[in-house]
């Protein structure tokens, strides 16, 4: 839940996070664009889920990013 709220802030552009990982940066940018076009709670939830699925798949190389995201 702690991470969810940080991801929501990121997707809403209320917080900023720049990764060294190309895919994560492109994903953040895409989700921010998607949300800016449809600022509904459902869309926000979909965007958060997509980012969490990405973290799940790349868990082994995303540890630092996840820890840093918790601090934003």
């Amino acid at each position: 839940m702690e991470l969810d709220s940080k991801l929501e802030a990121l997707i809403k552009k209320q917080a900023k996070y720049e990764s060294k990982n190309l895919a994560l940066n492109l994903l953040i940018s895409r989700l921010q664009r998607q949300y800016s076009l449809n600022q509904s709670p459902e869309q926000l939830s979909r965007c958060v889920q997509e980012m969490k699925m990405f973290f799940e798949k790349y868990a082994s190389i995303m540890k630092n990013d996840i820890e840093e995201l918790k601090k934003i």
Partner: protein
Amino acid sequence: MFVNLDEAAKLIREGKILHIAADESLLDKLPKGKWIGGTTPYFITEEGGTFSKDKLFVNEIPCAVDFKIAVYDRTNIFDITKDAYSNGMTMLIIPFASDVAVYFAKEAPYSADIFMNPTFGWISGFDLSTDSKAKVYDGANGVSYSDKAVAMHICLPDDKTVSLGIVNIFDIDEKGTKIKFYKDALTVSKCLVDGKEVVLSEYIEESKIDTKFPLVADYNSVLVNVSIKTVSRENGTVDFYAPVFSENEYHFARPISNYAEKFNERLKELRDVKPVFSCNCILNYLYGELEGKATPPFAGPVTFGEIAYQLLNQTLVYAEIIDK
């Protein structure tokens, strides 16, 4: 590695899993095997940029557990994510100016799951002094296509994954001119420059903008270029090599005088990278006069577009297999 036809054929006969870039005349002569290929006679080798119709650039894919080759057109190109191995990578080659290349360029940034599998590759090209066609090759059956994309899906061991990176030598001035487009497009007439509607072709001409330098958008700190193909004062249009997107804010890139120097500056931090694949753009090669100039540790085909999840322009793309 930059090898002759016999050496490339030997690697194929040895059963190696290969990515091959070369002129069509050489790719046509290769035996069937575990390879995919695309056409270009331009390369940046370890010795420097070169034009060759006598040698092939070959990447051997190490530590592959399994692989499969698939051919796609515009109706199914985004099946690449579905077809990919759950722990793997996908090398994708698409012929320049094909329907599937245009479709991929416009739709990849919107494609679901595109970031769930590392997808990288290039847009194949041809000798610019001829009227040849860009092609891709499915080495398993030796068939070439000018209207289809070819992909090699590679399954990696559980303890390995792939890291994709790009090197963009262009910068933007955040306080400089801001450009917004009305819709996603490969050809543009009117747009907003600093909030004021202009005909972009007229603006470029009147402002004496050097079209060798791309438009650049910031994707959460990743600078993504869109290269200018043609400016037609007559038609009042500007054509791009990749689409511009209405949601993005674009800037004209800061001019660069010495591309090789700029690459070397950017590559300092990447000396330890051990790429399994890399490619660089034909526009960097031509405008930057990279013939004879190397970009270590990166060597590979010079391409008509680069792919790292989506189509990129005037960018060096690389892939590295790393431990999880």
